[in-house]
């Protein structure tokens, strides 16, 4: 029955990939590039970077804690969406499917739909690690801990989704509970990491700590107990909780504090709406909190890694890896938060299209607000983690410049992709924010990031060597990379703008799917064609 129930999702994915030749080619190209990049990086040299071998145990521990937190948070978003907001829940409930089977179906769906990306990234990484001479035992141990964390996280998310929804059926209150839970997770996990890894204990291997021996065992047992607990809670309570939520799903109890924006005219309209759409969307808010958790974890690890300094190779490695990781991190933030921007407008997009605003103005307004947000939050994060890593001033400034141009590029690419692969007919916002489009945008942004970072690394490398006209060459490189980035932003803006202009156009023929449907729906709602 699980396979039967999952079949539509698998078929939908297949149809999405192969429905359009263009989409299929882009997806396969990105997957290929990503896998090759990871395997090459990790088999050829990353493993030999001193920090990685020094901090092997810490990496494993951080991975387990980090994945557990992220597994719980992302599963929680997906869990609430799938259990209570998805329309196919009612299809399942009206079909001859027992509650035990229903639990299995939901569990596998939540686990698979939220955790496959983790494996997608870690599998080539692990392969590269082993190919480069790394220990297979380490990979097996880390892998089993990862699965246990994911099972425990998914189970916990189902229990929490049922508990919070049952106790606080009003969405706003539920978010508050989720927030409190996250704060608890952040503080407890940070406390656990910092207790184990104080500066003085860094020289002591984690194996010698009393908790290490039982750590793995506890995680395995926790996963099994959590699974049994969530099954029992689900079977007893799901139908009752789902039934009690019908009136709330109609939105009668959703009340929010109004948001005012101190700007004028069209910019105020676009920026204000963008902020409202974002802040009133539970999946976006919870995702942001998840990213915040990731940033804090990264920061805490930076404090530890920052103790290793002095040797030029180690210092340079730290700076490059830091620039690379934080840029990829921001690429994922852009993919998950910025990419859905147009799709989240939903079928009310016709109001914007039919208003006197140009597509260029629209995309640049969205770019401004998102760049401002990511630059301010990300900038603080980058600066603080750079300081925690004990990087010298020159490297910090270089990193900040690199970070700033990458944010500008990634935001516009995400917006542009979001306009090209727009989807107005979502069932619930979580379907857009957690969809494949976001994921592939993140990957594409990461690839662009890797390219720019690799080119930019030449600046500090050249700076460290003495030769005539060095400053001039460095300055020329700064200008050239900035100009390349500017060109990328401009190009992406053009692509995005022309895609926006197509939003309201009905395509002839049967396969003018999305836009024709959008047009039909808008017409029936408003009695007038958009645009």
């Amino acid at each position: 029955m699980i396979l039967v129930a999952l079949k539509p999702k698998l078929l939908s994915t297949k149809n999405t990939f192969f429905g359009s030749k263009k989409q299929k080619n882009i997806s396969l190209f990105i997957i290929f590039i990503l896998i090759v990049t990871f395997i090459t990086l990790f088999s050829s040299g990353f493993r030999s970077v001193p920090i990685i071998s020094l901090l092997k145990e810490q990496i494993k521990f951080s991975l387990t804690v980090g994945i557990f937190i992220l597994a719980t948070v992302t599963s929680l978003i997906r869990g609430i969406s799938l259990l209570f907001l998805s329309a196919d829940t009612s299809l399942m409930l009206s079909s001859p499917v027992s509650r035990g089977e229903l639990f299995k179906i939901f569990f596998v769906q939540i686990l698979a739909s939220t955790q496959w990306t983790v494996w997608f990234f870690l599998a080539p990484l692990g392969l590269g690690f082993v190919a480069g001479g790394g220990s297979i035992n380490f990979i097996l141990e880390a892998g089993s801990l990862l699965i246990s964390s994911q099972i425990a996280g998914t189970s916990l998310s189902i229990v929490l989704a049922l508990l919070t929804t049952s106790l606080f059926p009003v969405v706003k209150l539920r978010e508050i509970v989720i927030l409190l839970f996250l704060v608890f997770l952040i503080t407890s996990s940070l406390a656990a990491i910092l207790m184990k890894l104080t500066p003085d204990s860094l020289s002591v291997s984690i194996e010698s700590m009393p908790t290490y021996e039982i750590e793995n065992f506890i995680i395995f047992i926790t996963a099994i107990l959590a699974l049994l607990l969530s099954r029992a809670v689900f079977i007893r309570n799901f139908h009752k909780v789902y039934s009690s939520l019908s009136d709330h799903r109609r939105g009668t109890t959703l009340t929010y504090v109004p948001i005012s924006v101190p700007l004028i005219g069209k910019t105020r309209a676009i920026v204000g709406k963008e902020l409202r759409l974002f802040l009133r969307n539970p999946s976006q808010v919870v995702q942001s909190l998840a990213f915040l958790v990731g940033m804090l974890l990264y920061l805490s690890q930076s404090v530890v890694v920052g103790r290793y300094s002095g040797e030029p190779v180690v210092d340079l490695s730290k700076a490059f890896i830091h620039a690379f990781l934080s840029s990829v991190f921001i690429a994922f933030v852009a993919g998950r938060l910025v990419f859905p921007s147009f799709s989240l407008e939903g079928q009310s997009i016709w109001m914007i299209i039919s208003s006197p605003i140009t597509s260029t103005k629209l995309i640049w307004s969205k770019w401004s607000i998102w760049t401002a947000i990511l630059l301010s939050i990300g900038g603080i994060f980058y600066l603080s983690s750079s300081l925690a890593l004990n990087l010298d001033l020159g490297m910090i400034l270089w990193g900040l410049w690199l970070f700033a141009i990458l944010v500008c590029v990634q935001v516009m690419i995400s917006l542009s992709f979001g306009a090209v692969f727009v989807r107005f007919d979502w069932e619930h916002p979580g379907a857009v924010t957690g969809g494949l489009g976001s994921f592939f945008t993140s990957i594409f942004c990461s690839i662009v990031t890797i390219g720019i970072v690799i080119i930019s690394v030449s600046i500090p490398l050249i700076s460290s060597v003495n030769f005539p006209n060095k400053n001039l060459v460095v300055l020329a490189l700064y200008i050239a990379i900035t100009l390349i980035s500017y060109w990328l932003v401009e190009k992406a803006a053009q692509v995005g703008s022309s895609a926006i202009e197509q939003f309201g156009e009905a395509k002839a023929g049967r396969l003018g799917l999305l836009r024709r449907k959008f047009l039909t729906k808008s017409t029936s709602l408003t009695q007038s064609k958009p645009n």
Partner: protein
Amino acid sequence: MLLSVSNLSKKYGDFLAVNDISFSIKEGEIFGFLGLNGAGKTTTLRMLAGILEPSEGEIIIGGHNLALNPIEAKKITGYIPDRPYLYPKLTGQEFLQFIGDLYELPRKEIPEKISFLLKEYSLTEWAHELIESYSHGMRQRLATCAALLHEPKFLIVDEPMVGLDPQGARFLKNSFKEYAKNGMGILLSTHSLNVAEEITDRLAIIHKGKILIQGTLSEIRSQSGKEGLNIEDLFLELTSYDSRSP
């Protein structure tokens, strides 16, 4: 008796959406559920389909208690919701295949049944197109095919005519009459008085979660003492208090 509903209630917090209703449907009977928007029609139908848990009361479908033996009861029930969810990225054929598997129909029979229904509902040439390209009427027809695929004895239909053109509406009405002739019991919720008058054998008028009156049209006229009124006037008369309130 194919369906027997006794003292059914549904509460959302303090709000009583369905208030102690009882009715029954025989094989081959089309039973209309008539009411204003928000009267409790859809909530009742969703309880009968097993989607919502009743707060109180009992539902027996084909001799199976829905609360105690939901799988058996659902196996003989078909449900067409007012806004059917059909996976947009599946083709019509794939969606019906999925429904066939979900109801555990013999694998060999599924393709034959699918072809028959698609032909019956004029969807054959769209069978391999993604559902997201379907018009509202086509989706409605596909949802009907899905509900009929496992040959249910009892069919629940929520607002079937909404958004259909006259031709589509006529076809659906004739189909329901045909199915009833073959022994299927049909519960049809609508706020369209013409539909209720034209195809139902008996009907109930639900108002603020309570059944005000039920029976054949002539029984309702005589029970209410409004024998000279047509169905529209009768309905408005019975529900007039609420229509004047804000």
